[in-house]
C-alpha cells in the first residue's frame, strides 16, 4: 500500500509493497482467521462502510471471497459485474468509475481483464482501489493468501524453495507470487516450456527451467498454475496430453517423491491436466486451505485500508 495519494491508499500490486507491509498483513490475517471459526462470524470493524465489487471479468471465487470478507467485517457490499452492468452497453471504465464514486462508496474492489485498469481507476475515484486481478499483471490478494498459507503450514517463508509450474506468461498469479516470494526471501524457480515464459523474467530475481523433474527434487513448495486449452491454439505447446506428460503432477511423479513438497494451486484445478485427480484428492486440504485463508487475508486488507483511525 505504497500508493499513497493524499490520505488515501490503494492495493494495486505486490511489486509496490514493502516486505514489512506484507508481513503486517499476514499477521493481521491470522487474527481475522479466528473470526471465521466463530459461530457468529462477524465483527463490527467496518460497520457503515460500503464496498463495491466491480468485476469486469468472470470470477466466482475471488468475488465471493471479497464479499464474505467485507460482510464479516460488517461492511455493506454491492456487486457490480460486467454481465449485469452498463459496461456491457459500452459505457467506458471512466464513466463507470465516476458513477460509482457519485454513489458515495468507501472502497472499490476491481477485477478487470485489462492490465493496469485498477491503477487507471485511481485517477477517477477518491476512495481506495483494491486490485482483485488485472489482466496478466497482478493478483495481489491471491499472492498474499498464498504466503499466508505457506507460512501457516511450513512455519516460515524466508529461505523456502518454491517452484511455480505452468503458464507463467499469462499468469497474474505467477507475477504477484514472484514479487511476494522474493520480497520475503524465498527462492523461486519457474518451470515451463520457454514458450510459456515471458521475456526477461529472470530480471525479477527468479531462475527458470524447462525440466519439471529438476524442480521436484528441489522445492519445498510446488505451485501449479491452471493451464488453459486456448494456449494450444496459440502454439504455446502442442496438446494438453503433451503438457501433462512433461509438466503435469502425475501419479508416477507424485508417488516417487520423498519428501513430498507442499502442493498449491490457485484454483480452479484442471484435474487430469496439470494435476492427476488422485494426487489432487491427496493434496486437497492445502488447496481448500488457500481458499479459507483468502477470506481472512482479504479481511486484513479491507481493514487495513478502511478500518481503524483512518476510517
Amino acid at each position, binding site marked *: 500500500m505504497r500508493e499513497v495519494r493524499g490520505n488515501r491508499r490503494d492495493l494495486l500490486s505486490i*511489486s509496490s509493497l514493502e516486505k514489512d507491509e506484507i508481513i503486517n498483513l499476514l499477521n493481521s490475517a491470522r487474527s481475522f482467521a479466528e473470526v471465521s471459526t466463530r459461530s457468529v462470524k462477524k465483527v463490527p470493524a467496518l460497520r457503515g462502510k460500503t464496498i463495491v465489487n466491480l468485476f469486469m471479468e468472470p470470477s466466482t471465487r475471488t468475488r465471493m471471497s471479497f464479499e464474505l470478507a467485507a460482510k464479516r467485517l460488517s461492511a455493506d457490499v454491492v456487486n457490480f459485474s460486467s454481465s449485469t452492468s452498463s459496461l456491457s452497453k459500452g459505457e*467506458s*471504465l*471512466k464513466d463507470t468509475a465516476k458513477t460509482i464514486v457519485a454513489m458515495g462508496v468507501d472502497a472499490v474492489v476491481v477485477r*478487470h481483464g*485489462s*492490465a*493496469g*485498469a485498477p*491503477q*487507471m481507476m485511481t485517477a477517477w475515484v477518491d476512495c481506495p482501489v483494491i486490485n482483485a486481478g*488485472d*489482466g*496478466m*499483471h*497482478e493478483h495481489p490478494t491471491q499472492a498474499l493468501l498464498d504466503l499466508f498459507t505457506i507460512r501457516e503450514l511450513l512455519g516460515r517463508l524466508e529461505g523456502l524453495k518454491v517452484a511455480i509450474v505452468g503458464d507463467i506468461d499469462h499468469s*497474474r498469479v505467477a*507475477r504477484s507470487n514472484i514479487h511476494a516470494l522474493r520480497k520475503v526471501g524465498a527462492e523461486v524457480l519457474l518451470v515451463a516450456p520457454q514458450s510459456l515464459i*515471458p*521475456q*526477461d*523474467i529472470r*530480471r*525479477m530475481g527468479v531462475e527458470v527451467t524447462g525440466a519439471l523433474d529438476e524442480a521436484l527434487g528441489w522445492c519445498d513448495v510446488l505451485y501449479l498454475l491452471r493451464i488453459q486449452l486456448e494456449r494450444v491454439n496459440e502454439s504455446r505447446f502442442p496438446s494438453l496430453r503433451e503438457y501433462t506428460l512433461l509438466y503435469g503432477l502425475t501419479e508416477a511423479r507424485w508417488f516417487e517423491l520423498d519428501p513430498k513438497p507442499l502442493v498449491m494451486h490457485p484454483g480452479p484445478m484442471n484435474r487430469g491436466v496439470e494435476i492427476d485427480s488422485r494426487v489432487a484428492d491427496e493434496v486437497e486440504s492445502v488447496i481448500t486451505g488457500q481458499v479459507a485463508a483468502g477470506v481472512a487475508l482479504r479481511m486484513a486488507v479491507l481493514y487495513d485500508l478502511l478500518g481503524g483511525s483512518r476510517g
Partner: protein
Amino acid sequence: MTYWGAAVAEGILIKGGRALAFPGGLTGEVDIMVDDGRIKAVEKGIAAGVATVIDASSCVVAPGLVEMHAHLREPGMEYKEDIASGSRAAARGGYSAVFCMPNTEPTIDNSSVAEYVYDRGVNEGLCMVLPHGAITLGRGGETLAPMGEMAACRAGVMGFSDDGAPVSDSEMMRRAMEYACTIGTLIISHSEEMSLSGGGQMNEGYYSTFLGLRGIPPEAEQIGIYRDICLAEKTGAWLHLAHVSTSGSVELVRGAKRRGVRVTCEVAPHHFSLDDSMLVSYDTNLKMNPPLRSRGDVEALLTGLADGTIDVIATDHAPHASHEKETEFDRAQFGVVGLETCLALVLTKVVDPGVLSLEDAIARLTEAPARIMDMGRWGYGTALTEGDDANLVVFNPEYEWTVDPGEFMSRSRNTPYAGWNVRGKVLHTVFKGRLVVTDGELV
C-alpha cells in the same frame, strides 16, 4: 488553385537573427527582407522602411520545417483532427509543409481524395498540406492503388504508403515497388511482421513482462524492414522506412546503405526521447506503434542520427480524442501528437547532449525531407537566397518553456510531454511570405 494570402504589402523585415541555410550553414547576425512572398534580401543592416519588423535577436532563422509523416485525419475522422486544426498545429510548430498519411476515411487512394486534401490545405493557407497516397486500394493489401493518377493530379503525390499497417503480402510489395520505379515515386513502408506483433500493446521485454501487457517484439519490425530492404535491393525501388524504432532496424538500414541500396529512413521524437520503462504508469499517451523501446534502442537511434544512418526526423503526429486514450491500456488507440513539440524535443534531446550540431539537426527537419520529397516542385528551398519563396521559421534555441497540452492548436491532446520543461521555441513562422505565427501564436 494557388495559395491565397498575398504577401503583406509592406513586407516583413526579420532583424538580427542568425540565418541557417542549406547549403551554407549558420551565419552570423543578419537581416532578412521578405516581400511579395519571396526573400528579397539577406544582408546586414537592412533599413526597415515600411516593413513589419520582427526582432530575431538571439534567434535562428531557418527554412520552414518539412513534416514527412503526419496523420491529419481528414476526411473521415475530423473529431480527432482536421486539416484546419492540423495546419494550425503545424504552423505553430514551425512547419511549412506537412505530408499526411492516407489512412483516412475514405482512404487517399485516388486523385479525387488526394486533391480534396490538397485543396483543403490550400484553403487554410497556413502550410502546404501534401498527401501521401495509399499503396493498395483502401489500404487493404489486395489491389494496387492508381499511383500514376495520384502522381499526375494537382496534389502531385510522390510518396506511397499503407502506413498504420504494413503491406503484408510480399508479392504485393514487390509489384508495388516495381510499379513505383516506373512512375518515379517513393514507397514509404510501415514495416511490421503482423503475425509476430499482433495483439501487442508495448515493446516486448522486461517491462511488458512486469506490467502484464502483450509485447511487440523488436523482431516484428526488423523482419519487416529486412524484407523491404531485400525487395528494394531487388527491384531498385526507392524505399523510405517510416518510424524506425529499434537498434536492429538501424543496423539493417546502415548495412543496406553501405551496399548501395536506395533506402532512407526516419525516426520519431518519441522514440529517441522516451523508453519503455516509463510505461509503469500505464499512461496511454505512451502507447504508439511502433512502441517505445528499450534504453539501448534509444541509444542506437541517437547513434543512427549521429552517423547519418537516419536521414529524417518525422513526428508520426497521430491525434486521438480523449475518450480513445482515457481507457484501458489494451483498448486505447496507438499514437501521439507531435507537431507542436518536435523542434523543442530535437533541440533538447539531440542538440543539447551533442548528438548532432544545430545545423545537422535542423537539416533532418528541412533539407533531408525536402530532398527526399523533391520539394523544389513546390517552390520550397532551403538555401535562403534572394528570390526564393519565403518559407521560414524563427526560433529561439535557448528559450525554455513547459509543454501545456491545453495550449495546443491540434484538436487532440494525446501527448506524453505534458509538464516537460524543454528548450527551444518557435516564435515566428513565415509561409509564402506571410507571417502566420508571431510570438509563438497564430496571427
